[in-house]
Each structure stands twice: as C-alpha cells, then as structure tokens.
C-alpha cells in the first residue's frame, strides 16, 4: 500500500461521509462536485490541448435542458409542462422520476458529445484567440436562441420535475450529492486514465506546437475532436445533475450562464494550475470556498470581486497553485534538479 492509495482512499471516505458530517452543506457540496467536474473537463481542453475555450458552457447548458426535457417528456407532454405550472398538474412517481433522471443523464452526456464531434471539425480549425472568441459566441448564441424556443419554456424558464415524496426529508440532498459525487469520481478516474496514455502526450504536443505535431505525422484534427468530445461528455453530465439540483432552468441565468459558470470553469482551472491533474480540483475547491464566503457576506459586490479576481489571477498568478508549487519544489514533481545550477540561477536573480 503506497502513499497514493492512502490519499485516494481518504478522499473517497471523506467524500462518502461528508453529507453526514456536514448535513447543512449538502447542496454546497454537490455544487462543489459539479464545479470540480467542470474545472477538470475545461483543463482537458484548455490546459492539456491549449485550446482555451469559453464555450464549454454550451455543453453544460445543453445537458441541463436535455436531461430535464427527457425526464419530463418520457412520461408527460413536454409542451403542456412548460406552458406553465406543469409540475402541479403532472406528478412523477418515484419510479418514474429516477427512471427519467437516469435516461435523461445518459442523453445529456451523449448528445453534447455527438454535437461536439459534429461541429468540432469546423470550430477546432480556428487557432488561438479566434477559437476563444468563437466559442464565446457559441455559448452566448445558444443562450439567446434557447431563450426564444417555446417548447423548453422560452423566457419564462423550465421547472424541472420536483423530487418525489420519499419518507425521508433528507433524501433529496443526499440523492443529488451522491449523484454528483459518483460522477465526479468517475470523471476523475476517467481523466486520470486518459492522462496516463499516449493520448495526453498528443494533446500536449498540439498545445506546444500544432504545426510540428502535424509534421510529425499526428492527425491533430482527430485528436482535437476526441479531446473536445470528452470535455463535452462530462460537461453535459454535470449540467444534467445541476439542472435537477437547482430545480429551475433559465436560458441565460442558469443554463448558458457565460457570465458565471462559463468564466468560473476557466478561472478555477487557471487558479489551480493549467495542465495538471490535481490543479483544477484544488482550484475549484478554493474558488468555491472564496465564492461562497463572498456571495454570503458581500451580497451584490460578488461580480465586482469576481472581475478583480480574474484580473489579479490572470496578471499576477497565471501559472496557478500547482505551477507555483512546481517552481518551488521541482523534486516533488519528479523533475531532476541540478542543485548547483539552481543555486547559480537564484544568485543570478
């Protein structure tokens, strides 16, 4: 039993026990899990592949709408539900609710991944800032357009099916917490497995120099599309759970919320350290604690703080926490350090 196993075991046990230790924070813990998933998936795209995107919010919002629509549409007419007060007329039985949610999540994960694959060839051909602005445009366009579509509630929003009456009062929070925690563990393990393969090296090659990677015989477009599809898959999954957790979907304020979630995922990954496995996890956790503190005590000033935070992090701390640690303790990251050389560099400064 080595050190890593103990660490992972401890985190797993803590994760399972957390809702019982902090029963009042169940919703916050679920949101934390979702945030970590988003940060990890953004990192696959932005950190490892070097394609900085503002557009993963597209898949998140898509997943949210798809999950809720499937959950309702499987049993009741969707149009009448969103017309107004559908949640009062039609009631899901517990079996229907869980069945619908499971199918909805599957759809919410698969469809965004397929869409990413379809549009990937056109969008991923863009480089650098063109890609960033294009994906920003995609996210906002999706929000504006979904706000005009009648069947998913248009401007007045979409109430997701309320949690069915089970005997225990705590069941709703626990259900959504464990949903998001299981998805988080699944995401983390999947991304960790991906990072130990050649695939990650290809992504890094694309990040470092795409033309050279192409010249070395790597089909960069194929790998970029697969990378984006992985991102989209987990983003959709996270969105689906978040829709059920919030209980209400609005096109621009909840689902395609580029001003909040869309920026958060970039910021969390950069805060923790781009291009590392643990960076986004640490960044998301710290960011969530900071955010909740600020959102609670300085209500109204949160966006001001967010704006200042973005500017400060981007200008003074672009390497993130993991990058800073790596510079300070390179030995811990498995880098061989020439002690004399390092000292010489320090004195040079």
């Amino acid at each position: 039993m080595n050190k890593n196993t103990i660490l992972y075991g401890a985190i797993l046990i803590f994760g399972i026990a957390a809702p019982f230790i902090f029963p009042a924070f169940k919703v916050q813990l679920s949101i934390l899990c979702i945030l970590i998933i988003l940060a990890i998936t953004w990192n696959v795209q932005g950190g490892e592949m070097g394609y900085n995107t503002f557009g993963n919010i597209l898949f998140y919002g898509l997943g949210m709408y798809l999950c809720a629509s499937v959950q309702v549409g499987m049993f009741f007419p969707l149009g009448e539900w969103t017309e107004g007060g559908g949640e009062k007329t039609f009631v899901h039985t517990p079996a229907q609710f869980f069945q619908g949610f499971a199918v909805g999540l599957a759809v919410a994960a698969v469809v965004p991944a397929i869409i990413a694959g379809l549009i990937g060839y056109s969008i991923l051909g863009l480089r650098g800032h063109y890609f960033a602005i294009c994906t920003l445009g995609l996210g906002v366009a999706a929000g504006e357009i979904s706000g005009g579509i009648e069947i998913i509630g248009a401007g007045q929003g979409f109430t997701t099916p309320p949690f069915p009456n089970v005997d225990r009062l705590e069941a709703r929070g626990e259900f959504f917490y464990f949903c998001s925690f299981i998805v988080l563990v699944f995401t983390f393990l999947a991304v960790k497995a991906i990072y130990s393969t050649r695939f990650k090296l290809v992504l890094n090659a694309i990040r470092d120099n795409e033309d050279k990677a192409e010249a070395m015989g790597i089909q960069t477009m194929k790998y970029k599309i697969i990378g984006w599809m992985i991102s989209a898959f987990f983003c959709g999954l996270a969105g689906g759970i978040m829709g059920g957790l919030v209980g209400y979907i609005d096109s621009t304020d909840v689902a395609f919320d580029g001003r909040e979630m869309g920026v958060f995922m970039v910021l969390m990954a950069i805060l923790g350290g781009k291009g590392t496995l643990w960076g986004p996890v640490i960044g998301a956790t710290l960011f969530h604690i900071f955010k909740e503190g600020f959102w609670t005590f300085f209500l109204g000033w949160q966006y001001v703080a967010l704006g200042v935070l973005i500017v400060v992090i981007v200008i003074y701390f672009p390497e993130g926490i993991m990058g800073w640690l790596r510079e300070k303790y390179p030995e811990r990251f498995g880098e061989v350090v020439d002690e004399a050389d390092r000292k010489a560099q320090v004195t040079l400064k």
Partner: protein
Amino acid sequence: MDFLIFQVPMLTLQAVLDGLLLGILFALIAYGMALQWGVMNIINIAQGDLVILGGYIAYFMYLYGIHPAWGVIVSPIIMYFVGVIIYKLVINKVVDRDLFISILATFGISILFMQLMNFAFGADVVLANSGYGTTMLFDNSVTLPNSKIFSAFISILFAIGLVIYMKKSKLGRAIRATAQNARAAKILGVDTEKVYAATFGINAALCGVAGALISITFTIHPYMGLPYTIRSFMIVIVAGLGNLPGVAMSGMSLGVFEEFADYILGTEFRIGSVFLLLVLILVYRRFKLSRKREYLK
C-alpha cells in the same frame, strides 16, 4: 411566406436605412478595436462596456438638464482618461503576453464594469431624449428619427477627424510606427509605453463618442456591452486591420443584416443571430484559410 417584410415593401427600405445608420456607429466602435488590435495586439472584451459607460455619461448630462448632444464632446474626454487609467492598471501588464491572457483580463474588466455600472446607474433600460423629432419620407411610410441622422453624421465626422489626425500629427505617426514595428520604433526614440497608453485612450474616447450617440438614438443598459464587443470584433475580422473603408462597409452591412434579422426572425433572436453570424464568419474564414494553406503546400 407570411413575413411582414414581404407584404409591405416599404419596410425593406426602412430596414435598410435603419441598418445603414446603425452600422456607421458599429463601424466607429470597430475602428477603435482595429486600432488597439493593430498597435498593441490586444483584443479588448471590455470594448462594449466602455461604449455603455460613454452612453451613461451622456445620459447623466441629460438628467441634469444639459442637452445630451453635448455628451459627444464631454464623453470622449472623460473616456480618454478612463482608458489611460485602465491601461496603466491592467493592460500594460498583458501587452506582450499571450493573447488569451489579454482576452481573459479584459473579460474580468468587462464583468467589473458591468456590475459597477449596475450599482451606479441601476438596471433599467434608459435613453437620453434629444428631442430632435422625426423625418417622414414617402408618404409617412418610412420614418427616420433625426437623432439617427445626427449620430451618423457625427460618427463620420469623428472617423474622418481621426484619420487625418493619424496621418498628420506627431502622435499619430508614432502610433503608426509602433504598429509597424514596436522595437524599431523604440530604437528610433518613440516612447512606446506612452504610445500604447494614448492608443488605448483614443480607443476608449471613440467608444465614448459611440456610446453617447447610442444613448441618444437607441437605449443603454449595463449588461448590453458584450454584443457591441462581438460586433466590433466581427467587423474587424471581416474588414482586416487598418482598412478603414472596409470597416465602414462591413459595419454598415452588419447593421443592415441585423435589421433584417430583427424583422424576419423576431426581436428575441436579434442578439442570438449576431453571435451566430460571428461563428459562421469564423468558420467560413477557417475553411478559406485552410484551402489557401493546402494550395501553398
């Protein structure tokens, strides 16, 4: 087809005229964008928020009983200093860095401005009433607010003034030299730091003019900034950097496009159609460029 615009042919003329007058304003904002992009290699996401801030200056003059048309003169002066301050605090630290860093940093500024304006001026949609009246054309079937004609006229005036300034003045020549080659300009004694600050200030001043005009002709709202950024970005990539006639042309075409999208798809899809157009243009550009690359091979 049961669209209103095909039943009433005069509406087409109305949409074209509205679009052209609106597009001139877009072109003015885009010119500022092209200037800073060309000189400093920065894409400023906060461009639209500078526009809105300029609009609020004119609106405040209107609230205090001064005719909002004076905002066209006051707003750029204030905005110039706002621009220089933003440059000194943030932009000068991201000038030579990766473009994504500058995008993200200006995104932060944009969020900050949005919220500060929301606090300071409230979340209502406002407009500064200039009281200019309307001109009726063709038996009252086409209405043309005089304020729109006024704003188009002022925009053209400012654009021409700026072009002459960039050609003739010492600072203008320094800016153009820095845009061509910053290092060489530095060697020849141009204080590039000052040039960058002035460029960003001029850009902010242009946004101020455009904002004041928008507050007279249309409406402003603290959260309406991002579409203006996206529009100016789109105009610049279609026209290319340093191509003023191109900027004017593509600005006006965008205005006309928007008016038609408004009539045909409905007002709720107006902003969405702008963002979709951006995606389409970028994708088109990508395929065009990739064809060129294959040709070179």
